[in-house]
């Protein structure tokens, strides 16, 4: 089964309505209106590297002008020293892990392609990240931070940031935030008028 596509603008349309509670609207609107971000924790070059990694893990050719920015969420968290409540014991603390891990990605890029990660083609970048994910990437940084665990952690964090964004939620047809009146049509194939139907593949073509 091919994955469905959903129309644009669904969540943004709902945010302005009474179907969304005030607290919910505030949370989602802030992500849509996020101002241009200057890194507070990572060095500018490291931050740019994080952006490049995020762009490779979440390619957004459909949003060439304004991709969903994932790096700010990571930098803000590290700056504030926030945790998600646990850490693999085999991993160093998050700040150190991000420094070591991002440094390791550059090291691996150098060993494999004699250039830093940001200078690589998309295909080369994907090769580097694939090896990091498999725990097979070269570079001495990986002796201090396990590559596969680092990859799992950075991917999970970026993924949660991506799918918390209203545009990503439009992409997957999610409108659970519009729950102020509750849901009465719960069963299989039962939709309420505010739940978007998939665009059939034909109409996309």
């Amino acid at each position: 089964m091919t994955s469905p596509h959903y129309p644009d603008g669904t969540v943004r349309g709902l945010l302005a309505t009474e179907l969304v509670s005030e607290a919910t609207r505030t949370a989602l609107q802030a992500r849509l209106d996020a101002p241009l971000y200057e890194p507070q924790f990572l060095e500018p070059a490291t931050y740019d590297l994080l952006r490049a990694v995020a762009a490779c893990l979440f390619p957004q050719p459909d949003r060439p002008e304004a991709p969903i920015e994932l790096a700010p969420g990571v930098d803000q968290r590290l700056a504030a020293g926030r945790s998600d409540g646990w850490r693999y014991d085999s991993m160093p603390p998050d700040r150190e892990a991000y420094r070591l891990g991002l440094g390791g990605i550059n090291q691996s890029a150098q060993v494999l392609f004699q250039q830093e990660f940001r200078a690589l083609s998309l295909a080369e970048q994907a090769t580097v990240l694939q090896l990091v994910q498999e725990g097979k990437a070269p570079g001495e940084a990986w002796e201090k931070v396990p590559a596969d665990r680092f990859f799992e952690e950075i991917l999970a964090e970026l993924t949660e940031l991506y799918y918390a964004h209203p545009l990503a939620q439009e992409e997957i047809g999610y409108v659970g935030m519009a729950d102020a009146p509750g849901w009465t049509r719960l069963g299989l194939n039962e939709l309420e008028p505010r739940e978007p139907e998939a665009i059939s593949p034909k109409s996309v073509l």
Partner: protein
Amino acid sequence: MPDEEVIEEGVLNPLKQEVQDPLLKQLMQESALEPEPQPAEIPLPTDEVDCLVIGTGAGGAPLLARLAMAGLKVVALEAGPWHDPKTDFATDEKAQEFLFWNDERLSAGKDPMAFGKNNSGTGVGGSTLHYTAYTPRAQPDDLHLHRDFGLGVDWPFGYEELEPYYEELEHFLGISGPTPYPWGPKRRRGYPLAPLPLNGAAQLMERACQQLGIQTSPAANAALSARYYQEGVGWREACTNRGFCQAGCSTGAKASMDVTFLPLAVAHGAEIRPNCFVTEIERDEQGRVTGVVYEHNGITQRQRCRHLFICAGAVETPRLLLLNELALSSGHVGRNFMAHVGVQVWGTFPEDIRPYKGIPGGLISEDTHRPPDADFAGGYLLQSIGVMPVTFAGQVVRERKLWGAKLRDYMRNYNHIAGINILGDCLPHEDNFLELAEEKDARGLPKPRLHFTNHENEIRMNRHAEQLMRRIWETAGATDIWVFPRSAHVIGTARMGLSGDDAVVNAEGRAFDVPNLYICDNSLFPSALSVNPALTIMALSLRTADKFLESEQRRDT
């Protein structure tokens, strides 16, 4: 980059702790762990309360209410804030992360356990603020695995001790469920409310199980299928099927402690103090608890008490005991750490499911409570599950390791994805335990490190359940089926038993070592049970209060 002195953890009031308790100070000096600290000046409050309760979740809240109703002077200290769910709670997973205990825990072992949103909570109401509201009763044989299989340990009492509390709780909380209930002993009273409606995942599981000859039923959930009158609160409105239970109920339909036992406790004179993080438990020369020291908005405070009830959950409870070198003579504090086998199976269906709607755990089967073809001890229950998108996406990348276009393509199936999972027993093992790490948190206290590895019994149960759930999902018409191995809940780290040789508290919930210290949360479960723990924790909480009140009466006469 900011200075390295910047706090590393999300702790609001980082303060260097200073030891107040003379006994602990002496112990620390003897073991020469730390230089002698200078005691800070803490105002000595003149008031002593009858009962002090640490934690306001499923373990602390019911007994707080019970003790207040008995006319005792009671105070509860809660580490987290007091929310107003109606205005503060967003239907947004990221915005709701404040509900989880986000101070870092270190996860070790071959199957390191996820904490945070997986199984921890903070705030007035504790983890019940984000529990799924799934409230099956344990079955009688859950309490004697050792008698039946020769493994683990038995509970120090039988089902008949819990049964009246289960019944009381179902009616007090307004649990929605099927009457009669298809499994377990015959009940004197049915559920007070009809079951909640089934969502897409529940319908798919029902359909497939019917074809396979597996009995199912709408599950018991502590969310209201109709308006319900709550003592101490007034009318609570029916559930609106938001499907967001695991990120906080904004309507009050879910029976979290903040809309049930806690208002009842307050109505009877209990005082609840939010944002109070207990660091120290003080004792007299006989070893009796005299009070606690806690941090409140950066200020160190002391509260004296005649009796202390620690109800801080199966990580913070043993951590407090270890930090204070309290009730350790059995050697079992922090040991016997168990976590339910909670493997999930996901699949993609042609039907529109919209997994964000309806009570997440809509359908149950307990046909697997003691499967005839089992090659393991104990058993499990089966349930259908709904899921919120951010949680789901996080699981997808950790397990399926998808990224790039493949991930975005897969996630566009979200509205067509449904899951089922199990909740199964777990045995205690020597190498599964909690300890204090050398690494400190922002308060200067050692972080907890938890070791967890599944052993043969858990691995076999997992395999049995995975095969069965794959068959169910194939029968239901799923494609692209995948498995998310998972452990749920934190259990057993200060267990109860008949003897102080192998248990921390006795059958009444009182510490063997300390006559006026009680523990009540899932740390005292001797075995994990084959059902979700919340209802049993609440039952133990009411029972502990009743046992305590009885013993006080005995002393008076």
